[in-house]
């Protein structure tokens, strides 16, 4: 955890001290290259599309030099250069659904046969701008993130670099189907109808019945209002089988990672697959709200074949993904 000197809120930090200029750039490059290498994407031809998904891109670099002009996409191109990437480079800036949306784009290209590999990088690199912005909106907690918690009082920002290498060939983890639904009624919050639509579309595209979902990875950030809306949507969809209280477990990674904003899609899918593979689960160090998520602390018992992951963000974005484990049981 780190705090910016003049701000009240802690941040789940990538590197321990604030860095500026060349120091910031060197740290960012090291993290990006390490994550991309771990994903296996650098072992391929690097000729597929590269998606750089972020709500902030290089604003942490620009703010330290007070250089607010410039082309944000140029940073995505620079990231491609760090990786010696030969395919087309796209930047996706959909606030906190950026990398969930980028996965949808990559998934479509692979499914359509245009490419056989793609890399999605979710980046939320250190910057004061985002923390101060969310602080100004009174969305942050000064203590800790407690998604669906009884004493939840806001989110904690998280920095992250996550890389997901997508291939058209069969693998253990399959992004079976996803959806992105933008709504205009509440640009800073979750809209129940839009989230429900995203869930239903993702299930339909995955060819999975709601009753087959064995685990829900929550979006919940610790917001008093939005967490309740999300819980209600899951209960409504429960009529068709996804039931956090009765039929499958819910899990949240935000107490461990913070809300990694535009990187959350890639970061939380990566972490979920790791948890499922290892059958290791983050412990909950706070009391869940008994009205919303009485079983949040429970560990899923059975093998989870299909997991549902939810994401939402500023600008009315709502996204859902079904992640399937293709390993034989």
């Amino acid at each position, binding site marked *: 955890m780190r705090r910016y000197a*003049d*701000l009240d809120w802690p941040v789940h930090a990538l590197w321990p001290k604030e860095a500026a200029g060349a120091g910031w750039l060197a740290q960012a490059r090291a993290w990006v290259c390490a994550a991309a290498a771990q994903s296996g994407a650098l072992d391929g031809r690097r000729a597929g*599309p590269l998606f750089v998904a972020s*709500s902030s891109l290089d*604003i942490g670099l620009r*703010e330290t030099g*007070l250089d*607010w*002009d410039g*082309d*944000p*996409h140029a940073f*995505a*191109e620079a990231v491609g250069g760090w990786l010696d990437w030969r395919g*087309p*480079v*796209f*930047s*996706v*800036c*959909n*606030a906190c*659904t950026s990398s969930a*949306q980028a996965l*949808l*784009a990559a*998934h*479509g*290209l692979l*499914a*359509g046969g*245009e490419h056989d590999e793609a890399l999605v990088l979710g980046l939320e690199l250190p910057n004061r*701008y985002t923390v*101060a*912005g*969310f*602080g*100004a*909106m*009174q969305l942050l907690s000064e203590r800790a993130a407690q998604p669906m918690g009884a004493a939840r009082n806001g989110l904690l920002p998280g920095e992250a670099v996550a890389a997901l290498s997508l291939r058209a060939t069969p693998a253990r983890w399959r992004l079976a189907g996803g*959806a*992105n*639904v*933008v*709504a*205009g*009624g509440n*640009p*800073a919050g979750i809209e129940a*109808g*839009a989230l429900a*639509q995203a869930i239903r579309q993702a299930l339909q595209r995955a060819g999975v019945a709601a009753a087959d979902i064995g685990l829900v990875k929550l979006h919940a950030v610790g917001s008093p209002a939005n967490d309740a809306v999300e819980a209600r949507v899951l209960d409504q969809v429960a009529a068709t089988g996804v039931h956090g209280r009765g039929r499958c477990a819910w899990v949240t990674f935000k107490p461990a990672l913070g809300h990694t904003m535009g990187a959350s899609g890639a970061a939380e899918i990566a972490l979920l697959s790791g948890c499922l593979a290892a059958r290791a689960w983050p412990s909950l160090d706070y009391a869940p709200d008994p009205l919303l998520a009485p079983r949040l602390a429970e560990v899923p018992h059975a093998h989870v074949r299909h997991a549902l992951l939810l994401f939402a*963000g*500023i*600008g*009315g*974005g709502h996204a859902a993904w079904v992640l399937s484990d293709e390993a034989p049981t």
Partner: protein
Amino acid sequence: MNLGQPRSVSPPAPAWILGAHWSLAASFEAAPPDARWRQALAARLAERPRRLGVWAELGLHGARACLDAAGLSGLPEGALVRVASRSGPQSATHETAAHAARSPDGMPLPFGFIQSQPSLLLATLCRWLDWQGDGACVCSRALPVTWRLAQSEALAADAPALLLGSVEESGDELATRWWLLLRTRRE
């Protein structure tokens, strides 16, 4: 109500359109927009859109005009929207950063911060184009590359329509271009 007719054009279908799948229903270009574009937009919407910032407001102006050129009051259900921008909401970012720098607590104005997020334009289009669906802000080195990706995504989603817009803000220089593509149904 016209929206600054001198800049509204319907050029031939651009080469990047995948003609086997899509047809161009309408396009709109305001590069730069007419001097009274904000007044024209407010008149078209019957109210002044508030707290959007110049960049998102310009995008809304272009999208609305493109749909008007197609004779549509709103976007078809299931349509995809893709917005590309090399600049992003530049003035909102500048103002947000400047306000934070000079305020005693180092904080920006909350509405300024939201206006600096490109995704605000997507929520704006939802509200004013009577639409809810798959929207994204995506950018690449060249617009045709971005629009090819968008068409692939729309095909994968079996979308009936695709609204594409580019919105640029560089200092006082503004430009926006929009295209509405409709899916060609093969018998």
